[in-house]
């Protein structure tokens, strides 16, 4: 019996600690069901009164991963290329652009950071170039005489700083969005992972996260001029599409028989070209990939006339056409072709409006295509405050912005000299509204109206107030899980756990009799400790994690099996019960240790190289190993010793 005092103390202590760590989890579950039972008004009052308590409990409870409660996981990448170009402040040249493009290409399969790649690419494009010529910045101590190494250090610091700012800005935006437990983490040198439980509007989140809040006021070109050139663009595509079909005919008779098929097969090349061009453009700007990246297949299969419903020639509106939601990126690509750019008046951009309207002929959702000047009259950097307001007459939600002194005076100038003309409010290359200027606006206060919903207004204000991201961010990975599927997963996991536990318990009890019952008891202790460890260390329970626990059930038995087999052997060899138990535990130890250490090491490797769900699995695997070894060696031993001490015959059935 010696040493059992320690065993009892350890088991009791660990169990208490585990239960204590699990307490908030139980409380949280109880809070949840109590809140669900209240009527909405009472719930609101209760939440207002006990908000802090509820939050504290929830924060300390065992967290469920996104795959179990539904939500959204977004991995963002900060566009380092754009940041470098901004740091160069317009001192770029051909070498710079070539090197930037090369570095962007190489970054795809290199472990080096972007700055190193860029520096190497500059060196290759034009040896002995001083990086300082691009990145001179007296306030940062970078002069024309700075060495390349100094400039690189400065750039790396800037990139790091930009990433930190981006993370902070994203945190602010997410916080204002009102998600219960957002998780925002840095990943590697240029990525930010955002986890948003319980999100049901993924599109809104995407816009909120990657909105760079590039607010611009731009004037609009003469409508008639633009409308006329759009007619020419339409003709250009009509000619090309017709020419392509007939051109393909002699070469391929099958295609001639079915013109549509011919067009499809033939147009794969141009589509590929635009796709490549798109990659280059995006690589350079580092931005808007998510919006423009698209479906060459779709682009190739439908003609321009089918996708764009042009406004009538000579219309006095800046709206040049309507494009269905599904065609926007294909049309954007087509309009970016050099042949098309040449037909459009210089200095004019064609941008989409922010909200879709159902006004095309077949009733699908469509965006307006608006012609605006490339020239930015006033930028968002002059905005000092933004608020959500409601229009005094229509009560429609709108965004009200306040400008600083410089912005206000520029705005007065612009409005006074353009009375009666429209001005476009462009946010992140999307036209929100293009009202006609009714008169001079003197104080720098202005409203952005549009067919906004309340949510949209809130989001725009959030983006404007949190400030512009230092560089554009792209969504490079995303996972959306519906809440009902998450609930289903929890249910499945629980059910598997319970059924697995019962079956394994039955099996070992049948096989080892009393020993089996002890093993089941140890398994129960193991489960309590395991959940306690997970809750105590703030781990997140994921679906693979549950799988890990169910698997642990099976493997945890192993230690007991090793011990019992040894005890049986020793008993068969004629030893007394007491001696057999001692020998069994002692001899089984080496195998238990070896097996569990190797599996634990696997867990460590999985944790260090894996991401999200894999780490969840690794954590439960490692925690499960520690708790199961403890349960088997200490708890089982305790139960056996205790029974032997009380049992007069000093025998335990090991089957």
């Amino acid at each position, binding site marked *: 019996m010696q040493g059992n005092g320690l065993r009892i103390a350890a088991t009791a202590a660990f169990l208490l600690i585990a239960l204590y760590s699990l307490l908030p989890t139980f409380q949280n579950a109880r809070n949840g069901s109590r809140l669900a039972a209240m009527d909405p008004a009472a719930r609101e009052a209760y939440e207002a009164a006990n908000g802090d308590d509820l939050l504290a409990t929830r924060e300390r409870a065992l967290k469920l991963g996104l795959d179990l409660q539904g939500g959204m996981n977004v991995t963002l990448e900060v566009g380092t290329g754009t940041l470098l170009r901004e740091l160069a402040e317009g001192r770029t040249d051909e070498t710079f652009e070539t090197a930037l493009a090369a570095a962007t290409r190489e970054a795809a399969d290199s472990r080096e950071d972007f700055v190193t790649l860029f520096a190497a690419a500059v060196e290759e494009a034009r040896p002995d170039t001083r990086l300082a010529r691009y990145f001179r910045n007296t306030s940062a101590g970078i002069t024309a005489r700075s060495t390349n190494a100094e400039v690189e250090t400065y750039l790396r610091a800037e990139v790091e700083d930009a990433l930190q700012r981006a993370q902070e800005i994203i945190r602010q935006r997410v916080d204002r969005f009102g998600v219960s437990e957002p998780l925002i983490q840095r990943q590697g040198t240029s990525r930010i992972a955002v986890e948003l439980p319980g999100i049901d509007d993924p599109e809104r989140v995407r816009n909120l996260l990657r909105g760079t809040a590039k607010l611009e006021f731009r004037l609009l070109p003469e409508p008639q001029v633009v409308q006329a050139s759009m007619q020419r663009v339409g003709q250009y595509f009509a000619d090309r599409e017709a020419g392509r079909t007939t051109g393909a005919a002699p070469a391929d008779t099958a295609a001639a028989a079915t013109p549509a098929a011919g067009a499809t097969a033939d147009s794969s090349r141009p589509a590929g070209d635009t796709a490549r061009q798109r990659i280059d453009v995006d690589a350079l700007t580092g931005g808007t990939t998510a919006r423009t990246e698209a*479906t060459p297949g779709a682009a190739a299969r439908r003609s321009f006339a089918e996708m764009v419903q042009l406004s009538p020639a000579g219309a006095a509106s800046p709206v040049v056409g309507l494009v269905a939601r*599904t065609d926007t990126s294909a049309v954007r690509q087509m309009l970016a072709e050099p042949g098309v750019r040449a037909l459009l008046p210089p200095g004019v951009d064609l941008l989409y409006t922010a909200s879709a309207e159902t006004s095309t002929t077949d009733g699908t959702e469509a965006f307006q295509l608006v012609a605006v000047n490339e020239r930015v009259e006033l930028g968002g950097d002059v905005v000092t405050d933004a608020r959500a307001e409601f229009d005094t007459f229509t009560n429609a939600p709108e965004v009200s912005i306040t400008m600083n002194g410089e912005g206000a005076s520029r705005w007065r100038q612009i409005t006074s000299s353009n009375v009666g003309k429209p001005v476009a409010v462009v946010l992140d290359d999307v036209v929100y509204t293009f009202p006609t200027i009714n008169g001079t606006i003197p104080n720098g206060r202005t409203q952005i109206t549009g067919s906004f919903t309340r949510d949209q207004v809130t989001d725009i204000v959030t983006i404007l107030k949190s400030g512009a991201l230092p560089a554009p961010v792209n969504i490079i990975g995303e*996972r959306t899980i519906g809440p009902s599927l998450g609930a289903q997963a929890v249910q*499945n996991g629980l059910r598997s756990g319970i059924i*697995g536990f019962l079956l394994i318990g039955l099996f070992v009890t049948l096989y080892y009799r009393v020993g089996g019952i002890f093993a089941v008891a140890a398994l129960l202790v193991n489960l309590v400790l395991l959940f306690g460890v997970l809750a105590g260390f703030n781990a997140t329970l994921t679906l693979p994690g549950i799988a890990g626990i169910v698997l642990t059930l099976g*493997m945890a038995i192993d230690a007991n*099996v090793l011990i019992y087999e040894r005890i049986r052997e020793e008993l068969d060899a004629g030893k007394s019960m007491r001696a057999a138990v001692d020998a069994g535990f002692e001899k089984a130890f080496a195998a238990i240790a070896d097996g569990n250490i*190797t599996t634990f090491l696997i867990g460590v*490797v999985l944790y260090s190289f894996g991401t999200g769900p894999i780490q969840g699995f690794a954590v439960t695997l490692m925690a499960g190993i520690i708790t199961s070894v403890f349960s088997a060696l200490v708890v089982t031993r305790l139960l056996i010793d205790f029974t032997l001490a009380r049992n007069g015959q000093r025998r335990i059935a090991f089957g």
Partner: protein
Amino acid sequence: MRILENTTYDFWGIRKVGFIVSGVLLVLALIALVAPGLEAGVDFKGGTEMVVRVQNPVDLGRTRQALAGVLGDETEVKMYGSTRDLLIRTPQTGDIEQIRTQTTQTLAAAFPDSNPVVGDSYTIGARFADDLYRGAFYSVLGGLAVIMLYVLARYDWRYGLGAILTLGHDVIVVLGIFAVLNAFTPISFTITQTIIAALLTIVGYSVNDTVVVYDRIRETEGLYRSESFPTLANRAINATLSRTIITGVSTLIALVVLLLFGGEELRGFALALLIGIVLGTYSSIFVSTPIVVLLRERFPVRTRAVRAAAR
């Protein structure tokens, strides 16, 4: 209850059976790995995966055809658990909202009463996928290296080599089975992060099984000096046979339950582990120990007596 107690099977005597079975499995697995080969999932290849629920069962072939028009020819459509849930996988990434809209619109047009709704969606950009792939590659490599170092530190090098060869055998055969399952059954068995986790768990389990036998050999080596090494090895396998089977069955119970009740998402994971545990149990009996015996015969250990004499 006692099964497999005090067995005296001659595993060394039938080692050729094990070698032939393993040899055939390895060759078949290697062929399967070349063609059809493994298919990388969205995690490692990039692309978008969606689960779409439809009101009425739809024809998979026609769905694929319809979707190929908008999402590209590489689009795959598989059944996901029930006939009303479709798993759609496409190399497209980018504007997820657009891909989702295109999918539902196309399905609604092709099957008027299907009323498709996109449930979960999962998108990984190509570059991100490259990084995940690298991470997975290093974790498998790292896992194997860590185990090798541990076994080498704890045991004689013959055991270390035996354990590593066994693991190599297990990993290749399991991957081969994945390739076959993916190509010739309706089960989608693409290689994802979850499958990599399963693979490493299999490695852990297999090494655990192997080490238990090795431990017993080493322990009895000192006890029965007069016995030949093959006899010792046989005795060790037999002595641990009951433990090997009971632990294996317990783990299999957990996995079968997971397979049946764990839901669609865990099915691939549970099946992968199920295959791996069976294989790991087999290999700890028929592969790892015979290898050590062979290595001992080829590179005999100088016993204490010999060493003493040499001194």
